[in-house]
């Protein structure tokens, strides 16, 4: 794990309000695993104060850390104005990452919106064709499933809320169909990242069922290091200690480890 000023190699718009950022940091590339994240300091001033967490969306050429982000507030608005040649302070890689799929398992990647970022990285590390990738977006113009972000040659099933592309409806509906198709021979294993409501839907289909499932979650974070205890999230009620810390114990969790009722 390191903290350093990293050169921005590119920072380009790839879909509506969505940007793709390449940061030069060979040391982070050397350590990064799918599911891990970095924290970026946006702007040089003290406002906004805290670093912003972003999943690592991939690595390239031994030295580029890739990030896919949506402009949603003050920090990301500042970020999208930063140009190649400038630099940003990056802290990472942070968190635990996905447990990689094992032999004989059939991975199903389920993304909602920007939740696609860590799954793109995951997809790039598992055998092409060996998995399914379901991705939901608000509308067609938000779709980032392009070569540019490292999704070439991957067969994506897409859903949009407004039906402007792919299946009209929720990505969880695609997952439901997909899971229904499995027989006892192959073990589906689900990797999901996206808005909480979507993850709740995924949890409803997988938690305490025969389907293994790892979810990547978000929480407000201050340190990203396990030091401030700010990113607490409820463990499933069977467990002795009430909270995990998303930055350290996660952001990837087994679906059965969490208390979905109270998330």
């Amino acid at each position, binding site marked *: 794990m390191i*903290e350093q000023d990293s050169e921005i190699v590119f920072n380009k718009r790839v879909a509506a309000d969505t940007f793709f950022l390449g940061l030069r940091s060979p040391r982070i590339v050397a350590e990064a695993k799918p599911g891990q994240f970095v924290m970026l300091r946006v702007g040089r001033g*003290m406002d906004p104060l805290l670093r912003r967490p972003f999943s690592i969306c991939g690595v390239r050429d031994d030295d580029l850390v890739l990030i896919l982000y949506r402009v949603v507030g003050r920090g990301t608005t500042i970020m999208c104005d930063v140009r190649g040649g400038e630099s940003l302070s990056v802290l990472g890689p942070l968190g635990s990452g996905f447990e990689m799929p094992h032999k004989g398992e059939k991975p199903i990647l389920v993304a909602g919106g920007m939740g696609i970022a860590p799954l793109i990285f995951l997809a790039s590390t598992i055998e092409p064709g060996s998995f399914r990738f379901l991705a939901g977006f608000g509308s067609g113009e938000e779709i980032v499933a392009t070569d540019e972000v490292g999704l070439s040659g991957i067969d994506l099933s897409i859903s949009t809320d407004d039906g402007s592309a792919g299946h009209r409806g929720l990505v969880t509906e695609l997952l439901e169909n997909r899971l229904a198709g499995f027989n006892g021979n192959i073990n589906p294993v689900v990797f999901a990242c996206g808005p909480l409501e979507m993850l709740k839907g995924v949890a409803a289909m997988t938690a305490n069922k025969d389907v293994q499932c790892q979810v990547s979650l978000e929480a*407000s974070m*201050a*340190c990203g290091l*396990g*030091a*401030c*205890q*700010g990113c607490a999230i409820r463990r499933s009620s069977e467990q002795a200690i009430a909270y995990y810390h998303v930055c350290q114990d996660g952001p990837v969790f087994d679906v059965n480890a969490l208390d979905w009722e109270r998330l």
Partner: protein
Amino acid sequence: MVHPDLRVKIGPMELKNPVLTASGTFGYGKEFSSLIDLDLLGGIVVKGISLKPREGNPPPRIVETPCGMLNAIGLANVGLESFLNEKLPWLQGLNTAVIVNIYGHTVEEYGAVAAGLSGVKGISAIEVNISCPNVEQGGMAFGTDPDMSAKVTECVIKEADKPVIVKLSPNVTDIGKIAVAVESAGADALSLTNTLTGMAIDIEKRVPKLANISGGLSGPAIRPVALFMVHQVVKSVKIPVIGIGGIVDYRDALEFLIAGARAIQIGTANFVNPKASLDIIEGLRMFCQENRIGRIEDVIGTLKI
């Protein structure tokens, strides 16, 4: 002149430099160990320890505010026993001062934690957080009342075999009064300030942004308030004062030292820049060199009024 002397004395305790990391913002030290060389620090103040482990408040626990943040961690910690068994041995391996921040919900609880730390090696001092709600008296913090502050101080001193630093709350009308009460009760040093109480509201959902409703404001936003309180307390007491609140660079640190703080703590800045404390030490060194100051002690309390 090449190597200014950064050592400071805080009562009976000597620090290699005046820069400590503040309780609750630096975990148990280890969390930052892969990012910075902890041995360079003046010291580490660990997360507040209570008699029993505490899980803390429900989330959300933090929210960003202009140049600051609110936290309502709820003093989540591993508890005295786990701290001694699991966290302290690693800290003892460091070559820096380790200060244990403690708290309780009754006077007796404070005493019990202090007793539990007695006889334990590798602890340079105890820092007593008196900003917690006093459950016996309806939840108003101990630290907002001079008498209760003094009582807690006395009780800890009775049990402790180490220097006792009492950490004051800024949420009071007259911090000088509390400082004097705590000094009279025998504290070796004071540290200030803890966080200012604040709140933020989610206007879409019309709920507080923190599950706990209110939280503690920290970061650069509070620096002017903390600095003024240090200035007031330094004038009121003879024991050493440690300055805390919104310090992010060596210039901020110097403001507190010039005001009379003998050391400073870095809190929220650790989140923004994990190297903040080391950058500050380096900045103080450079400042001394450039201004031909042989010892940082010669900067302390040099405010001209």
